[in-house]
């Protein structure tokens, strides 16, 4: 399957839903608890009991504005909450409070990496149509063992969790661009602290609209909508499969029907969930329980002045201020957790490149092996800085330090006391080292011979032998000095 449409041009637009990181719901004071038992984090408002009313969460508004500004949108001083009316058991009021005619923000863009002419790294700008605020629905659980074969369980814990919906223009042209775009969105949401944006946990969900048209055409083809894709791989695979399906239909002279599709990762195929009909009549109207949301210009400007640095700006700063390579800088800004960890450790230690090397090599590897996220690790940037400093000062060796990283990542701790406890302090005692050197020279007469005949490189081999004899604890600088002295005799 090809990622592009062959003889057709692929036109993709995304609707991304992201949970806002708040403690309570958008219009209900119920706490937000992930993974709670059904209906353990609800309030009469979440259940749409008769007589309840919505009141807007001010922090959700702040986060939504922040996201919109970080994505270069125009945030409107007046926006309207509207009711989207439809019946579903996970929608307790029979309507979702969303924004329709006057959304929070419009315009804006997100840049994604792309390959320019001749393979040079470049950027592509994906325009945004709008960002609006809305509430999430609850969950329908299909569990025959508990509910029986002809019933469904309804859990309203998620009902009312604040969301922003980010709607892109149809500027995306391939499955790869779609996932690049989503990664860019995720990075912005995380760097701005707006959302955890974890797809696995459902914080970030995405609907993809796909249509094809002949190259050069400026009319859009009939689009289909892929619903609720919950991993980057599924999105890419699903979009490819849908491009292929539509191409086949069009090549065979058929017409694409407007419909909603589901993707089955097992078969790698998309299947029609339902045909879009005129019956989709959501009867949007301004929610009479909520008055227009009016934002003062100063409020918007205050939020603008507080938008944290995004990944791209951080990476640039790491290159310009600290002289890191572009590749290192990009890797160190893969998530706010890594970027913050690096920045704190580098600030403390003082040699950013050295710290970068330790993180990119040892810390990353340990995280990978432990299948941990840096967020969940007790390892502090101060501890890493301290460990590296001990190496610098010859108090321990690179080898010993590296051996400790996995443990520090997994369970934290103080590097100085760990090194002391484990007997990993570097050996710089002249007597001990001189004895080791003497033994090594005695055991390797042929290498000593080679050295004297001009093969100066054998020093490295002899160094290694001394390190081995001291279980890697020898202070390398001291060993090199003694070796040079002894060989020079």
């Amino acid at each position, binding site marked *: 399957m090809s990622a592009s449409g062959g003889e057709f041009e692929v036109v993709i637009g995304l609707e991304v839903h992201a949970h806002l990181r*708040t*403690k*309570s719901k958008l219009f209900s*004071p*119920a*706490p*937000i*608890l992930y993974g709670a*038992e*059904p*209906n*353990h*984090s*609800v*309030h*009469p408002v979440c*259940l749409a009991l008769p007589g309840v009313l919505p*009141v*807007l*969460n*001010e*922090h*959700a*508004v702040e986060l939504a504005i922040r996201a919109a500004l970080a994505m270069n949108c125009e945030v409107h001083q007046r926006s*309207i909450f509207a009711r*989207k009316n*439809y*019946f*579903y*058991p996970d*929608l307790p009021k029979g309507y*979702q409070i969303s924004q329709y005619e006057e959304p929070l923000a419009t315009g804006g863009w997100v840049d994604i990496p792309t390959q320019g002419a001749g393979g040079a790294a470049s950027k592509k700008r994906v325009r945004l149509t709008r960002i609006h605020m809305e509430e999430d*629905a609850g969950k329908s*659980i*299909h569990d025959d063992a*508990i*509910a029986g*074969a*002809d*019933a*469904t*369980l*309804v*859990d*309203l814990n998620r009902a009312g969790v604040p969301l922003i919906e980010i709607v892109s223009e149809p500027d995306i042209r391939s499955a790869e661009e779609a996932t690049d775009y989503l990664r860019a969105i995720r990075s912005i949401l995380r760097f701005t602290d707006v959302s955890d944006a974890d797809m696995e946990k459902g914080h970030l969900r995405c609907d993809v609209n796909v249509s094809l048209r002949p190259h050069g055409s400026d009319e859009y083809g009939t689009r289909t909508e892929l619903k609720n894709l919950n991993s980057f791989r599924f999105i890419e695979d699903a979009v490819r499969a849908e491009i292929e399906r539509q191409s086949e239909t069009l090549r065979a002279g058929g017409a694409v029907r407007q419909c909603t599709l589901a993707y089955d990762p097992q078969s790698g195929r998309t299947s029609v*969930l*339902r045909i879009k009909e005129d*019956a*989709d*009549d*959501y*009867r949007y109207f*301004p929610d*009479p329980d909520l*008055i*227009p*949301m*009016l*934002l003062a210009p100063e409020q918007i400007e205050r939020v603008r002045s507080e938008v944290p640095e995004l990944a791209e700006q951080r990476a640039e700063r790491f290159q310009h201020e600290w002289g890191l390579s572009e590749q290192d800088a990009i890797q160190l800004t893969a998530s706010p957790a890594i970027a913050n960890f690096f920045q704190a450790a580098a600030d403390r230690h003082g040699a950013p490149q050295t710290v970068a090397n330790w993180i990119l090599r040892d810390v990353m590897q340990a995280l990978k092996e432990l299948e941990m996220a840096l967020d969940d690790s007790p390892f502090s940037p101060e501890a890493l800085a301290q460990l590296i400093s001990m190496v610098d000062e010859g108090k321990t060796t690179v080898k010993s330090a590296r051996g400790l990283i996995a443990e520090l990542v997994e369970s934290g701790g103080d590097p100085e006391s760990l090194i002391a406890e484990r007997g990993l302090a570097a050996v710089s005692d002249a007597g001990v080292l001189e004895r080791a050197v003497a033994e090594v020279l005695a055991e390797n007469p042929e290498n000593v011979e080679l050295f004297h005949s001009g093969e100066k490189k054998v020093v490295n081999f002899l160094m290694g032998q001394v390190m081995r004899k001291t279980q890697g604890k020898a202070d390398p600088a001291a060993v090199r000095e003694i070796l040079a002295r002894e060989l020079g005799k």
Partner: protein
Amino acid sequence: MARISRAEVERVASLARLSLSDEEGDRLVREFESFLGYIDTLQEIDTAGVVPTAHPISLPTPTRPDEPEVAMDPDSAVANAPEAVASAFLVPKVIDTEAEG
């Protein structure tokens, strides 16, 4: 001229999740007809450029701080439910294609 057809009344009923008996349907067509005729007097009014009023009085936007209240006791949450299993509501499964937003 008829303002509304029987089919249109049926479409509206299906949107509102109401099922109508034959007599109800016939009666509602007549009632719609007379009511819509009455409401049509509004069309006499020139409202070009008039801002719609969604709320009768203007107020500053009220918000609440992001402070969670204690969640409801789950037993009480489902106490009024016609059917519940453990602490979840129980509903018949969807057996037809249902609109979902």
